[in-house]
């Protein structure tokens, strides 16, 4: 695939915005940085580790109308809210962990029953990721098989160099973006410069969790592992607030609800979370996951067993958001370490 050098990110942003492309990127929001729509190149900030939100909301909106109905005594008229086209969008500055997370979401929403609301948005979106040169104590991407310069899920990957970016096209879509803006790009510098740029952060990232994701998967292989006494201890703090799921790039749970008024209603697909007690409540009153440790166990199993086995993609990309956001300090890596030990972590 093509490689190049980008001198000025600002000019790329300018060009995209001038062409009427919807551009989403890291933007300051009070004391934090979030992925948000950018109105001008000045809105972009390069000073962030992982934005507070994940980019999934631009493909899988928090709330989306999927159907409208109008009804009276004579009948019902339905209006499909699936559009033929979704706005051309570039998400610029996506972290490699998040890009990988989107690739995981792709698998959930594709398949035999293809969710075109997601897939059409995805098709209209180009992911331009930017490699990380810094991390914080909660990042653990390399332990989940990713890395600060992992191209998976990106269309184009930019790695910051002194004065510009090393650019690599990962997909055809990325190549097309390069070709379409040839004037903004120069010949690629040596690839060694790019590798050197991320060497520092690679050595800083947590290494103690290596292999734990796979060990946790093996641990969960045994159905009896679900009854392991450790779950109570590992999840007793959790308040069921759901914050961890909303910031997670791979959490995909949603609800389908009608918002109605006499004569007309809208059917919506809204984010939901397996951490809420009503999530699995049966009509009969029975609740298979009636207590919080059982719900937290489900989230963990979803990340480390269901995703890799059902969709053959990672369920956790190590972005660290669930750890940063949790009001009570619940830390998924503690469980990873504990359960991997329980599974008998391979030695050597």
């Amino acid at each position, binding site marked *: 695939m093509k490689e190049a050098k980008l001198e000025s990110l600002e000019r790329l942003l300018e060009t995209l915005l001038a062409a009427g492309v919807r551009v989403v990127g890291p933007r300051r929001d009070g004391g934090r940085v979030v992925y948000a729509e950018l109105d001008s190149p000045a809105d972009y900030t390069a000073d962030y580790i992982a934005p507070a939100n994940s980019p999934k909301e631009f493909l899988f909106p928090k709330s989306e109308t*999927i159907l409208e109905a109008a009804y009276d005594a004579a009948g019902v008229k*339905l209006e499909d809210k699936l559009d033929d086209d979704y706005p051309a969008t570039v998400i610029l500055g996506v972290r490699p962990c998040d890009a990988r997370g989107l690739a995981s979401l792709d698998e959930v929403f594709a398949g035999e029953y293809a969710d075109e609301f997601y897939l059409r948005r995805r098709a209209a979106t180009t992911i331009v990721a930017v490699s990380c040169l810094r991390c914080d104590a909660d990042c653990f991407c390399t332990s989940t098989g990713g890395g600060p310069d992992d191209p998976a899920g990106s269309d184009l990957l930019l790695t910051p160099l002194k004065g510009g970016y090393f650019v690599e096209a990962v997909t055809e879509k990325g190549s097309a973006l390069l070709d379409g803006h040839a004037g903004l790009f120069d010949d690629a510098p040596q690839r060694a410069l790019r590798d050197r740029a991320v060497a520092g952060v690679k050595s800083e990232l947590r290494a103690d969790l290596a292999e734990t994701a796979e060990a946790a998967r093996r641990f969960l292989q045994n159905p009896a592992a679900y009854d392991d006494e450790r779950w109570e201890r590992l999840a007793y703090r959790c308040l069921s607030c759901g914050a961890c799921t909303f910031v997670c790039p791979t959490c995909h749970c*949603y609800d389908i609800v009608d918002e109605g008024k006499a004569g007309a209603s809208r059917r919506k697909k809204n984010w939901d979370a397996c951490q809420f007690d009503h999530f699995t409540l049966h009509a009969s009153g029975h609740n298979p996951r009636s207590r919080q440790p059982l719900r937290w166990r489900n989230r963990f199993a979803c990340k480390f067993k269901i995703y890799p086995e059902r969709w053959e993609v990672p369920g956790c990309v190590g972005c660290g958001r669930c750890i940063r956001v949790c009001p009570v300090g619940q830390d998924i890596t503690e469980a990873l370490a504990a359960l991997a030990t329980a599974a008998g972590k391979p030695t050597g």
Partner: protein
Amino acid sequence: MNTDNIYAPRLMRVIEVTPETPDIQTCRLRFEDEAVAESFSFATGQFGLYSCFGEGESTFCIASSPTREGYIECTFREVGRVTAGLARKNPGDFIGFRGPYGNSFPVEAMRGADVHIVGGGIGLAPLRSLICYLLDNRADYGELNIVYGARSVDDLVYKTELEEWADRDDLSLTLTVDPGGETPDWRGSVGFVPPVMDELKLSRDNGWLVTCGPPIMIRFVFESLRRSGWDPEWVVTTLENRMKCGLGKCGRCNVGDSYVCVDGPVYTMAQLDELPNDL
């Protein structure tokens, strides 16, 4: 309607409403669009999502048999906003339907074997689809035993059919109600379903057992079958987990890593034994 929208329901017209118990009713439905009605097919055990527009969608099995063409039926208890909305529908009114979804009862594998059906409460709904299917293909199957119970006489569903089944000589029907649920003229058994089933000493040679009912009933039925050494591959149930999408995406219905909406809802006891305690 755009058929690329996996969430788009088809309109169905209510053609008949049958009250079953004070809070359970059965709706007979027919697709409004003739072409859809013609092309629609399903297998016994599958389910669908039923819409009351303005209220939302609810998941129920298709309670009728694919052998009875031209309509489908659903049986539901009025417990929340959507089911209350559906319960207000009268013949001629419209509802929405998506489906059929999920797997189905192994009627091919069951051919030539005896079939024992053990149901409780509204759990008879999916079993009734199967029973009607078996009766419509009666020559292909061996003995047919039905054990069905509810809390009280009032809580038994499909009373007209229960009477018809009782009159047939090609099946054996045992009805029971929980202690205290009987009326003075009750001629069935009194007792919980699992012990009543035990008394029948159903033969596990060449016999399938299909059960559905409240989770606690299923648990005791399974325990009893395990004690008697029934082959877990020949014991079948259908799970009624909470569902929203029915498509394997919304993340709500899973038991361990099995997604009931696409991998189920029909499971053998052997399959459930492999799943974690997440039921």
